[in-house]
């Protein structure tokens, strides 16, 4: 009886010891993992902080204004351009004749300020609106724009992009079917070159 009891207790002690060690190592593993994750989180957070600071630095209003002046030429909204009610919007100008060369691509990045480089922009006063309301089917428009890539001034932003040092903004236009990434790349390349 006593002997049986001893064996029982011995087994119990061994089992308890084994379990304890097992649990201990399992916990240690998990803790290591937790610490690794924590360290990684810390590193990522530091990285985020640096990137946020850099992003903010790159978005300095002065810098954005300068980039705008060189590449986009956007100007501030004037009171005249803001309307509160639908009645205040004047009737739109008659649509451009379909046979004429496209006034401006509907998805032109920017309407450059009227200058010698943009004679076509003068065809309609509001190229974006008129093009958006243009009844010509979308496919027809794409083909026309595919042709429209050939005029050199449409390409000015694409290949031989070299911003002039003067205040005249570069005319940037996405020409129809050319994917947007192209002109964005071009923009980035321009910025890189300008640096």
């Amino acid at each position, binding site marked *: 009886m006593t002997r049986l009891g001893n064996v029982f207790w011995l087994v119990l002690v061994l089992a308890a010891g084994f379990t304890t060690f097992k649990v201990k190592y399992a916990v240690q593993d998990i803790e290591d993992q937790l610490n690794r994750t924590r360290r990684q989180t810390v590193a990522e957070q530091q990285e985020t*902080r*640096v990137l946020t600071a850099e992003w903010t630095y790159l978005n*300095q*209003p002065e810098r954005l204004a300068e980039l705008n002046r060189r590449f986009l030429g956007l100007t*501030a909204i004037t*009171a005249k351009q*803001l309307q509160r009610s639908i009645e205040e919007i004047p009737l739109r100008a008659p649509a451009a004749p379909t046979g004429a060369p496209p006034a401006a691509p509907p998805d032109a990045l920017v309407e450059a300020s009227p200058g010698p480089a943009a004679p076509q922009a003068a065809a309609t006063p509001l190229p974006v609106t008129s093009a958006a309301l243009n009844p010509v089917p979308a496919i027809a428009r794409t083909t026309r724009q595919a042709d429209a890539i050939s005029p050199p001034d449409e390409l000015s932003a694409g290949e031989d992009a070299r911003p002039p040092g003067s205040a005249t903004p570069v005319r940037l236009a996405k020409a129809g079917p050319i994917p947007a990434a192209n002109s964005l790349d071009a923009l980035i390349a321009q910025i890189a070159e300008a640096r």
Partner: protein
Amino acid sequence: MGSLQRLDENPCRPRHFRPPPCAPVVDDERATAVLETCRTRLVAAAALFTVVFLVVALRLVEIVVLSGGSAESHVGRIRAVALSTAPVRADIVDRNDKLLATTLDSPSLYADPRQIIDADEATRAITSVLPELDPGEIHAKLISGKSFVWIKRRLTPRQEYDVNRLGIPGLQFEHQERRIYPFGDLAAHVVGFCGIDNNGLAGIERALDGAVKGNAGPIQLSLDARVQFILHEELTKVIGDFNAKGAAGIIMDVRTGEIIGMLSLPDFDPNHPGATDPALSPAEAKERTFNKVTLGDYEMGSVFKLFTAAMALDSGVASMTKQYDASHDIHIGRFTIEDYHGKHRWLSVPEIIMYSSNIGAARMAVDAGAERQRSYLARFGLLKPAAIELDEVAKPHFPAPWREINVMTIAYGHGISVTPLQVITAVSAIVNGGVLHRATLLKLPPGANPPGEQVIAPKTSDQMRKLMRLVVEYGTAKLGAAPGYVVGGKTGTAEKNSGGHYDEKKLLSSFIGAFPMQDPRYAILTLVDEPHGTKQSHGYATAGWTVVPATSRIIERIAPILGVPPVDEASPAITRALMIESLQGKRIETY
């Protein structure tokens, strides 16, 4: 003894076996006594252990079960602190969460030359990624045989990455926290700057040092970086155009007292507050850190006529139709009060404001009396330092015995000097229905209705709006009319007091305005220090030619950002709201 005998008497006992003397051979009574003592001690010991184990068990139960998660979180907290990433100083952001100040880990590069294998190669590699270093110097350091030499302090993250990529053994980084202001000088005076020990030395960094250090989350200011930039750009232009010494501007939300923009020029880069420009003398460098808006004490000039008129109208001393004699200069003591744009006739209250008549304002103030003038100025908060979250705040200066001559000069803003911040806070109260809000640089939750003090009646506020609109429509600030935004305001051109007398050449031109006047949302104050007339301004350096056009441009640019819709200024609703009955049908002589 009995037991032993019993064993001996056992007939089955082996012959060689003698039972051991298992019981002490003592007499019965003594043995029982000793055994009793032992037993008692054992019981006592067992009881003691039981109690101790019970205590331990109870404590375990308490920690694990009863206190729930708190014990666990306690443990977790200790560990979290050890791994904490929260920087010493919290970020400061603008009202749109744009980063104005942040803390970055800034590595400094050092080397252990004893570990450097090839000093020539290492020098070449280091100077290839850090070209600003002198190769000779680096080489000398690397062959010095010391165990520690600084290569370069405060690397950018990119430089750190580049150096790491070189993979040279013996190069190490020491990490320190460094305060970065990504927008540079944009809000330099508001945000302030820190010393190398990360203590705030100016601006919000100093005034809210405790909060900046204690906060884990960012501190959000009421500033709008875009508005701040527009202020910066336009006022820089004014300084350039008129060859001025400096300029300042503030934009305030009149309903809450939040400051949307605050600028003082010339300014500095808080990333390098000490060394702005080696060409500058220390005095000039110090001048740059001076915040004109809160620390500049100025005699604001005609802008004060608004306070005179508000006082006279609110106390009932004057009405919109009451006239004052402005036909002759006032001679009092050795002083002469004269008008810059003299009309030489009796002027009504609106005309006094519109033509900016010193004589009329002085007569109006005398009419109201010294006591009333003093109490109204105190109500507007002009006689005590402005309350704002900055330490750089100047005390206003005003005469100690408030004599009649003081009453007259203070009526048009001379003989009292206050900060631009006090002026805009008071004017905000004048146009917003008469409630004075404390100026604040911290963003309030949208729709917040901060407490304020009713300083003038809403009716007076209404009349003052009309007067301010009149100045822009027909008076000295016609160039300030940003069409569509119904601007109203008052110009002030003060001669600066230099060495006890007023210098005609040294002007302080300012404009305080608000828009849209039918229901004001924002007040704006612009000020230019010592402008010089140009051909464009026909030689004038007065407010109407310098800061007023700039203010118009600023309003045109910031109104769409601030969500103020343009209106048709000629529409009946607007004209009726801002009409002055007494002037109706009269031909208004434009200024």
